[in-house]
C-alpha cells in the first residue's frame, strides 16, 4: 500500500542520508582501520537504503534510483538526525551512536512485522546494525575516557547532536494506519534511551540536556543541511535525465 511504501521511505531515507555522509570519510578517516570500518558501515546502510527504496517504489513503478536521485527535498522523509553534517569525528560517532542504537531496536522488532518484505529486509539489516552499535559504543568509550581533548570534543558533539534524538521517537499519523506493520516510534524510546544511557554511564557522562529540535522530517520538513547534501548527491544523475549507469 501507499502507507507501507511511505513508511519504507522513512527508513530508507534515514539510511540513505546517513550513508551519504559516512561515505565522505572513506579516505579521510583518522586511521586506515577506520577508513575500512566506516566504509563497511556506509556500505551496509546503502544496502539497507537500496532494499527499502526498491520496496517503496515497487508499487508505483519507481526504481531505487528514481527515488534517490529524482525526488526533491520535501519528498524526502529522513529524520533530521540522519541529515546532520559529519562535523568532526566526535560528531560522526555521536550520530552513529544514536542511529545504531535506534536501528538496533527498531529492526529487532520489525523482523516480526506483518509485512513480510519489511520483515525480511530488517532481519538481514538487524545483524549488521548490531555491529554498527558495537563500533559506536567502543568509540564512545575511547573518546570519553581517552584524553582530555577527546572527552571535551565528545561532550560538545553530544550537545550538538542530542537535540535530534527526540524526533526519531515521535509518532506521526501514518503510524496509526500501519498497526502490526510499522513499529510505533514512541514505544522504542525507553529501551533505546536506556541502552544509550548505559553506555553514557560507562563513559562517565550524563544524558545531555539542552535544546530539542522540533524536527519534521517525516512530514518533508528538513534541516538546512539536506539541501546541500542533495545538491551534491544528485548533481550528476540530474545532468543526464534518462541515462542509466
Amino acid at each position, binding site marked *: 500500500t501507499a502507507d507501507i511504501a511511505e513508511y519504507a521511505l522513512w527508513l530508507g531515507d534515514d539510511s540513505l542520508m546517513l550513508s551519504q555522509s559516512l561515505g565522505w570519510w572513506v579516505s579521510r578517516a583518522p586511521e586506515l582501520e577506520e577508513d575500512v570500518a566506516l566504509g563497511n558501515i556506509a556500505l551496509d546502510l546503502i544496502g539497507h537504503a537500496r532494499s527499502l527504496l526498491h520496496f517503496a517504489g515497487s508499487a508505483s513503478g519507481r526504481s531505487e534510483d528514481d527515488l534517490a536521485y529524482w525526488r526533491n527535498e520535501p519528498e524526502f522523509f529522513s529524520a533530521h538526525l540522519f541529515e546532520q553534517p559529519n562535523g568532526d569525528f566526535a560528531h560522526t560517532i555521536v550520530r552513529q551512536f544514536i542511529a545504531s542504537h535506534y536501528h538496533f531496536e527498531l529492526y529487532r522488532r520489525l523482523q516480526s512485522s506483518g509485512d513480510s518484505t519489511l520483515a525480511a529486509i530488517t532481519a538481514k539489516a538487524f545483524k549488521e546494525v548490531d555491529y554498527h552499535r558495537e563500533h559506536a559504543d567502543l568509540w564512545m568509550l575511547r*573518546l570519553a575516557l581517552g584524553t582530555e581533548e577527546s572527552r571535551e570534543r565528545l561532550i560538545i558533539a553530544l550537545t550538538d547532536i542530542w537535540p535530534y534524538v527526540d524526533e526519531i521517537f515521535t509518532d506521526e499519523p501514518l503510524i496509526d494506519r500501519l498497526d502490526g506493520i510499522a513499529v510505533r516510534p514512541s514505544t522504542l524510546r525507553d529501551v533505546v534511551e536506556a541502552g544509550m544511557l548505559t553506555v553514557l554511564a560507562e563513559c562517565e557522562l550524563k544524558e545531555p540536556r539542552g535544546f530539542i529540535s522540533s524536527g519534521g522530517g517525516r512530514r518533508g520538513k528538513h534541516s538546512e543541511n539536506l539541501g546541500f547534501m542533495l545538491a551534491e548527491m544528485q548533481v550528476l*544523475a540530474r545532468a543526464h535525465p534518462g541515462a542509466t549507469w
Partner: protein
Amino acid sequence: TPEEEQFNALIEADSRIEPRDWMPDGYRKTLIRQISQHANSEIIGMQPESNWITRAPSLKRKAVLIAKVQDEAGHGLYLYSAAQTLGISREEMTDQLIAGKARYSSIFNYETPTWADMGSVGWLVDGAAICNQVPLCRASYGPYGRAMVRICKEESFHQRQGFEILLELMNGTPAQRAMAQESVNRWYWPALMMFGPPDDDSPNSAQSTAWKIKRFSNDELRQRFVNMLVPQAAVLGLTLPDPDLKWNDETGMYDLGEIDWTEFHEILAGRGPANGRRLQRRREAHEDGRWVRDAAAAYSRKQTQEMAVAS
C-alpha cells in the same frame, strides 16, 4: 658468509625469504622502499576515486565505489604490515609520506574531473597495476608475496568494475559515450607510463630482477598490458588514442606509438596536476585524526593498566 650463501640458495630455489631469515641490507632496503611506496600508492590512490563517492550517479555504483576505495585502505594495511616485518614502523612510513619524502605512483597525481574517470581508473590504471603486480605474487619475500596474492584478487575485480562502468557509458546516451572516450583519451598514456621508463633507461631493475623482487622488464609488462587492452577496447567501442598502434604480424604483438615522457618527468618533479593537493589532503586527514588516535591509544593504555591491576 654462510648466511649469504643460504640466502642466495633460497632465492635460487624460488623459495620465500621470511622475516626471521638473514637478508642483505640492500635487499631489505629495496623491499622497504618498494613496499612502502606501494602502500602509499594505495593510500593516496583512494583520493581520485573518493572524489566521486558522494556524487555517484546510481546507488549501485555508489556502493561499488565505496567498496573499492575501502579495499584500497585495506591494501594499504596489508602492505604496511608486510613492510613492518622488515623493521620499519607504520608511523615512519606515514611521516615520510606526509613530509613528501616517500614516493607513490605518479598516476594518482592526475585528477578525476568526470564520472567516466571512475571507469578509466578501473580499466586502465588498475589494469596496468595488475600487470605490474601479478608477478609480485611470486616475489621472493614471503610477507610481500602473500599480501600481493590478496591484493591481486581484489584488483582484478576492480578492473572488471571499471570496464563495466565504461561499458554502461558506451551503451548510453551520446553525452555518456563522449564522456567515456574523453576520459580514456586522458588516461591511456599515463597508464602506459605506470610501467616505468623504457628498459634501457631503468637503472634499478637488474638487481631487483636478480633478487626475484622484479620478474619482468618495464617494456615487457607494458607490451602485455596493451595486448590485453586492444581487444577489450574493441568490445567497448572505444578508440585508444594512439594513431600508431597496430598489429605486427612478425612479432605477434601490437606496435606502440612513441611515448612522450616529458609529462611523466614533470609530474615526478612535482609539477603535475594534483601533487600538492594529494599531499595536502593526506596531511589534513592525518592531522585532523591525531586527537582521535591519541584518544584510542590512551584508552587502550588505561584498559591494559586496569587489567594488570585486576589480575
